[in-house]
Every structure is written in C-alpha cells, then in structure tokens.
C-alpha cells in the first residue's frame, strides 16, 4: 500500500480497495518506524490525520468524494497550518502555532486531502542540502550518508522513502526541483503567480512559488490542479483560469520542439549525469519530439544575480522577526535594541544571518545601484534569453543538478560552492517560468533528474512531456532499498 503513487491511491480509495483510515494508520506506523533515520518530519500530526481520514471515509460513504478525498500528503513546514506549529526549520519559530491556514493548505484540505505532518526544510528555505535546519539534517533514503537536497529536503526524502505519496514544497531558486532530482522523484515549480503565496512564509517574494513533490507527473497534475488559481489574499496570484492538467497528460509529443541548453551541457556537469540527460532526450525524440540545441547566453550570471536579489528581499522580509509579536524572544533584554539584536542573533542560524547581512549590504546606501539595480538588469537579460528561446522551441530540457547527492557536511564550509548546486534551476525562478524535474537515471546508484522548463503558464505542457517520458521509462518507479523497501 505504501509504495503506491498518489494517483493509484486515489483510484484504490474510490474502488474501495482500502479506506483512508487504513492507509493513514499504515503510513503513520511506517513514519514512526523509519523517520528516526531520515528526520524528514518536524511534526507528525497523527491524531488529526486519523480523524481527517475517518471524515474522508464518511464523505466517500455519502458519495461526496473528489479524486483527492482521503489521500494523505505532508506539508513543508513553511506553510501555515491553523492550530499546528509552523517552524520554517528555525529556532525563531520553534513554538509558533499558525493562527490560520495557508491558501494551499486550505484548498487541499477542502479537496479532502489528509495531512500527515510537516516536513523538515532548510531554515527559512535557505539552503540546498537541508543542513541549515534547526531540527538537524535530513538524510537521503538512497544513501543515508548523503543529503536529500534542499530546501524542500524533508518533503523529497519522505516521498522518496514512500512515507507519504505526495508533499508540498516551495521553490525560490530550485528548492523543489533540486531535492526531487537528488531523491529520485518528480517535483514541479509552477509559474510565478500560479499558486497563492498567502500563508507561505516569505523568503524572496519575487521568486518564491509553491509546488509539489510526488512520485509521478500524473500525481503532480492531480495535486497542482487543486492548489492553483487566483486568491485575492495574494496580490501577485494571477487571475487566469486553471486548465485541467490531467486532461492534457497523454497528448502526443509528435512535432514538439525541445531545446537542449548548450550552456548546461558544458564543463561542470558530471559526465554520467550528462549521459543520463542525453538518453532521456533520445526517449523524447523517440516519441516524436524534435531536438534543437539552444543557447541562453546570459544564464551564467543567474547564480550571482540571484545572490543579490534573493538576499535583498530576504533581508526585508525577515525584518518582521523582532522578538515582539511572535517567534523567539531573548531573555532579560537590557533595552529595545538589545531585544531586537539578541532575539534575531539567537533565533536565526548562520546561513540565514549570512543572507540577511548580504541583503543589507547590497541595499545599503551607496551600493544599491552597483548591486541590486545591476542584478535586476541582468535578471531582465536572463528572462529575455528564455523569451527568445521559446520562439524556437516549446519546452527547454537539461539536467536539474550538476551532480547526484553529495555527502552530508561536504559543502557546509563554503557558501559559494553550495550556491552553485542550483546553477541550472535558478534562472527559471528569475524568469518566473514553470520548471519540473523528473527522474532520468542513476549515477553510482544515486538518482539524477531531467529538468523540463516551459513558457509561462504552460504547466500542462511540461507535465505532459514528463508523463509521456514516464510511460516509456521506469526511473520514477524505482524506490530506495534497505530499510525503506
């Protein structure tokens, strides 16, 4: 039961093969037994999950059940969940109980989804390895000495280890796609504005976007349909109809123009990883897609542009944590300034402080034009590269990451080396486009991902390409062995 995909579970529940309560008890038992090793969950909401599962079973009994009714998922601990702790992986919010639900949480709950718990993550979503979490690193179920990627590392590890069939995530520079690749699952970051950010704790507001981590593209289509759409509570959410992502999954790929990014296949990409991507492209060609080589000339500047824009926005967003209204408060402050400084100094971890300081520096008097404005101009060039490319091709493909999962501790001492792990994913956020990572092979027993990027609001197309790829391959169906089998 635990190994089933979310779509398979949905069909099994409607066929009455088992109840939501049976499934949820089974998964909670599995989480209790295996998560000590993985550390994928910060909070397990077992009792509430069983109650929600029973309610879903009753709704189904009344004939009042949609496709997600009774389906268990986990939420990244960045989404506010009314009545439950939302820590964002930080000591700052260790005892913060959300007063309301994020729109994503509310919509999934209304669709009948059952939340099993809140998943571990890099602190305030700042990291690519899940090592910056106040709650300790998450381990990759394919090799527990390695990272699962980040920042949605808990969601990725939980889905990969088959502790839960699907989970939410957020992606500011690759935080869904990179862990999906390193954990051997499917992760999609939709277009900026597709899903409401209300109740999703802000890191860099012009880049943050919610998405999903699941076994398959079909699962992602199911979840995404329920999560997407306009929300008056987020003024950047786009008021445009949400297409039926399931309906377009099987569309033929004949004549589809796919572009392989030359700059991504260059030095820096592990050669076995490159071979897996090239094999995947051949599979798509076999389905009738036409391959073109394309160039994104400014893409090499996407990581430095991001590490100006994202820290600048983070330094502003995280100024709300002041020790007064919510969150960590330092003991016996001498005065108001001491309260602010010690609450923030003690409540935030080192990477968050680095980024707040980087952002403060690039926005400070005399530096704004040289850094922030310059980065926003480079961002325009990167977006223009993508626009030009999409005049020639329908989707862009390439690797999701330069290498498979690295060892825990390997990159913690040098922030810049860590930042380069997102070299293929960050440009997509800067341009606001939808991107997906699907498993496309193994390097030394570790999964690697194929990234598929689409035009703005073309989620249906990239899900379609990934789904057709998954009909021809079985990389997405492989699961870690050992204790997790």
């Amino acid at each position: 039961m635990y190994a089933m995909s979310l779509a398979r579970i949905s069909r099994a529940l409607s066929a009455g093969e088992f109840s939501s309560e049976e499934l949820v008890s089974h998964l909670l038992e599995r989480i209790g037994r295996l998560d000590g090793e993985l550390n994928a969950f910060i909070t397990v909401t077992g009792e509430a999950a069983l109650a929600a599962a029973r309610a879903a079973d009753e709704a189904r009994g009344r004939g009042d059940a949609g496709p997600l009714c009774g389906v268990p998922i986990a939420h990244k601990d960045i989404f506010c969940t009314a009545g439950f702790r939302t820590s964002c992986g930080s000591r700052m919010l260790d005892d913060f109980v959300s007063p309301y639900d994020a729109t994503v949480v509310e919509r999934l709950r209304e669709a009948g989804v059952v939340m099993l718990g809140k998943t571990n993550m890099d602190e305030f979503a700042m990291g690519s390895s899940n090592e910056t979490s106040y709650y300790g690193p998450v381990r990759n179920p394919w090799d527990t000495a390695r990272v699962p990627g980040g920042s949605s590392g808990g969601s990725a590890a939980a889905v990969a280890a088959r502790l839960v069939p699907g989970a939410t995530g957020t992606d500011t520079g690759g935080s869904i796609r990179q862990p999906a690749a390193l954990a051997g699952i499917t992760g999609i970051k939709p277009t900026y504005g597709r899903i409401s950010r209300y109740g999703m704790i802000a890191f860099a507001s012009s880049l943050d976007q919610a998405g999903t981590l699941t076994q398959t593209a079909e699962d992602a289509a199911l979840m995404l349909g329920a999560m997407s759409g306009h929300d008056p509570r987020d003024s950047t959410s786009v008021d445009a109809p949400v297409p039926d992502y399931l309906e377009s999954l099987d569309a033929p790929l004949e004549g589809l123009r796919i572009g392989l990014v030359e700059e991504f296949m260059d030095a820096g990409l592990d050669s076995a990883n490159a071979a897996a991507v090239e094999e995947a492209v051949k599979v798509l060609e076999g389905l009738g897609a036409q391959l073109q080589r394309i160039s994104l000339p400014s893409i090499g500047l996407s990581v430095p542009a991001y590490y100006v824009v994202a820290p600048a926005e983070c330094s502003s967003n995280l100024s709300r944590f002041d020790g007064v209204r919510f969150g960590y408060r330092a003991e016996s402050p001498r005065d108001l300034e001491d309260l602010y400084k010690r609450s923030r100094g003690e409540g935030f971890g080192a990477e968050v402080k680095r980024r707040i300081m980087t952002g403060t520096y690039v926005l400070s008097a005399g530096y704004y034009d040289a850094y922030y404005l310059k980065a926003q101009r480079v961002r325009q060039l990167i977006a223009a590269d993508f626009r030009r490319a999409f005049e020639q091709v329908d989707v862009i493909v390439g690797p999701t990451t330069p290498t498979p999962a690295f060892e825990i501790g390997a990159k913690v001492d040098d922030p810049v080396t860590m930042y380069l792990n997102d070299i293929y994913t960050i440009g997509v956020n800067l341009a606001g486009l939808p991107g997906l990572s699907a498993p496309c092979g193994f390097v030394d027993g570790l999964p690697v991902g194929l990234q598929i990027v689409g035009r703005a609001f073309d989620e249906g197309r990239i899900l379609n390409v990934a789904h057709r790829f998954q009909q021809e391959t079985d990389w997405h169906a492989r699961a870690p062995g050992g204790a997790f089998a």
Partner: protein
Amino acid sequence: MKLTRDEVESIAHLARLGISSAEVPSYVDNLSRIIDFVQQLEQSDTEGVTPMAHPLEMTQPLREDVVTEKDQRALYQENAKAVDAGLYLVPRVIE
C-alpha cells in the same frame, strides 16, 4: 573584495543582528566570498536595459478600499511572549 571587520559589524547593526565578536571573523570571510562572487555581474553589459520589477511584467492590481479582515487580535497575540491588556510589551523606551 575583502570586507573589513568594521563593515561587517556595521551591517549586522543595520540588520539588528546580534553577533558575538568571536563570530565576526567567519562572517568577514564568508560575506567577502559572497560579495566577490556576485561582483561577476560587473562583466555584463547592461547599458540601456530596464531593471526587472516583476517576473511576468505585471502591474499590481487594485481592489476596493474596504475592510476585509476581522479583528483577531486575541488569536494573534497567543503567539506573543509578553502581552498585557491587548498590548505587546517591550523593554521601557521612554524613561
């Protein structure tokens, strides 16, 4: 570019982040590396390029200026460490 100890302490002050003097050298080193890294942007010719203000070049929508939030002060203040009579408490500011 190497940031100085004074610069790092001044940035930490601007951000109201308390960092101990023992931690300062590691921030000097890390922030210098990050600033060095982002200075690659200088290589790019951006003459005449408009800075990007929104990923999809959209403008902010307007809504009617009517109250949509209800009063939930008591609920929100459950997360505060020090409140009294509906007010958030901070150390004395005015003697």
